[in-house]
């Protein structure tokens, strides 16, 4: 159905394209931002889009997508560019930059004071916020008198019995397996890149496989599984686990060995309104007051250090980029995965079927 709507809209865009483009050029007052919809889209709308439109007169349209990279490729190959800003996290950024599907970011507009660290200041993308894939633990299911502290315990089914869930993806899980095997979070990619690294990770995954009752695919699944008691230990996005805590469920979040994943946004090549897209990036994703608002609304935080001047210590400790949490996690290496995912994905499918 969604695909159908999409093709219809592409069709409509082709028919109406010529007229629209002319109109947009004369007015030059609109941008389209693609994102993953849901609560994130609502937060963006309230904190950034509405005030931005009020102040500048530029209308901002949101477009929901679930497969940004594939859509970027389609728009580039058909030369029918529907988006100005698109999410390019994970392999999205390296793959799209390599193929020349993105416009370079003008950092003199987006980050004139040079506040962002390199991880958020890429040639073709801004690291808008970061989220973590961490362990969520049902504290009421823990064995008496034991504290659960990280990946070693996740793998220790004798001391911590009970069903578990991991994401159905080799990315992150190979890293987690290596940490469980004694590798330091800061060294996981050095080990993964070594000749025996991937084999070592799969060997370690063999150990935990019988305890994984389900391999999750969508973000809401692991928290649903935790909430219903289907599993006792799960990997999940930090914001979703914190939502469970707000709902008063006995759940704890383990930052140790978490995977910090940057939510990148890029301007796609041939976008109709590059200049205003850059302005919006600065307005929404590099203004401390708004970033602090976003972090309060959802526990996803920016790399701009100034937000911790605004947020209280209590608020800060729940955020993936707070100094204490940053230290114990590793940053997902999207370049490694862009290069190796196709090869490892096949091995992953075969391994899961065994």
């Amino acid at each position, binding site marked *: 159905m969604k695909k159908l709507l999409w*093709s219809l809209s592409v069709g409509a865009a082709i028919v109406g394209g010529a007229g629209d483009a002319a109109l947009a050029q004369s007015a030059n007052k609109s941008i389209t931002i693609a994102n993953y919809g849901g609560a994130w889209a609502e937060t963006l709308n309230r904190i950034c889009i509405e005030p931005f439109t009020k102040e500048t007169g530029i209308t901002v349209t949101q477009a929901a997508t679930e497969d940004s*990279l594939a859509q970027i*490729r389609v728009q580039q190959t058909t030369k029918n560019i529907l988006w100005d800003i698109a999410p390019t996290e994970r*392999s999205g950024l390296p*793959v799209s930059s390599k193929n020349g599907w993105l416009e370079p970011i003008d950092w003199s507009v987006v980050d004139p004071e040079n506040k962002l660290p390199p991880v958020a200041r890429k040639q073709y993308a801004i690291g808008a916020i970061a989220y973590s894939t961490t362990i969520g633990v049902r504290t009421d299911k823990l064995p008496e008198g034991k504290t659960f502290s990280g990946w070693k315990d996740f793998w220790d089914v004798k001391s911590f019995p009970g069903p578990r869930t991991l994401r159905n993806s080799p990315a992150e899980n190979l890293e987690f397996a290596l940490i469980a095997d004694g590798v330091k979070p800061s060294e996981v990619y050095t080990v993964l890149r070594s000749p025996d690294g991937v084999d070592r990770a799969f060997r370690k995954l063999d150990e935990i496989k019988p305890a994984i009752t389900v391999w999750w695919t969508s973000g809401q699944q692991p928290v*649903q599984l935790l909430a219903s*008691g289907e599993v006792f230990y799960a990997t999940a996005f930090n914001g979703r686990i914190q939502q469970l805590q707000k709902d008063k469920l006995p759940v704890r979040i383990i930052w140790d060995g978490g995977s910090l994943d940057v939510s990148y946004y890029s301007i796609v090549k041939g976008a109709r309104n590059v200049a205003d897209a850059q302005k919006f990036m600065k307005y929404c994703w590099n203004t401390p007051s708004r970033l602090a608002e976003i972090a309060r609304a959802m526990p996803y935080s920016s790399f701009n250090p100034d937000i911790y001047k605004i947020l209280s210590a209590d608020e800060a400790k729940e955020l993936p980029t707070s100094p204490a949490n940053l230290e114990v996690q590793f940053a997902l290496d999207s370049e490694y995965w862009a290069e190796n995912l196709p090869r490892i994905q096949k091995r992953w499918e075969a391994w*899961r079927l065994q």
Partner: protein
Amino acid sequence: MSDGVAMPRDGKGAARGRRAPLSSLWLLAPAAVLFLFVFILPVGEVALWSVQGEAGLSAENYEAALGAGPYRTILFGTLQLSFGVACACILVGYPAAYFLASRPPRNRTLLLLLILTPLWVSVLVRTFGWIVVLGREGLVNSMLLGIGAVDGPLQMLYTRGAVYIAMVQVLLPVAILVMFSTMTTINRSLLMASRILGASPWRGFVHIFLPLSAGGAVNAWMLTFVLALGFFITPALVGGPKETMIANLIATQITLTLDWGLGSALGMVLVIAGFAVVGAVALLFRRVTTLSGHGGSR
């Protein structure tokens, strides 16, 4: 339908009857144009992608899709699962359709509505419903534990059984509707005549109703089988790793690894395998399908 015109039994007449005068072919034009743009051209493009290699035409994507390895296993698993689900839909749906068709028309509407209601609820929601019912601390387990029938919770979710239950539930209304519509065209006086001539109700059913409705059952089987082939949300949410469907793999290639060549090849293989199975079934049951095509109302 029951116009009393006798149709020849050998099928030649049917073939002659099918030859439409050329002048009325334009009636097909709107459908043909639509079909060309929304089906033939896109599928043709996908077929092209699937044979494009680094340098010119290449069969590498098909080798990857069909060679020994996870993709072939998943393809066979998908065909097997869809086969089983389609058979289960017919076994469960046939009696229900029979019951419906034997009600007086006035009562049917309400019953049909009851069968159709689940179709209005999204597949995703229905699947999550099964998670609630079959879960570790779900309805069935709480009940079994409550009456002391089991010592610990049974693992029902993430098994093949759970996928069967959930997929059959989703596809059953479709199967029932197809079989029901064939059954309503069966002339009930044939059954009455058999009773008058001394046949038992069971014999009447086996020799008259069953053959006349078999075509509908075969059609329903083919339809549910093809629909099941494309499933991926349900098996991903309630099944284990062994219930991975080919559609999940295709989605991974299109959106994650961006290997559109392999994704296209997997898609083409699925289309061809689907056609092959449906074609084989149609050939195998040609006699019953043609029988019910125009035999039921005579």
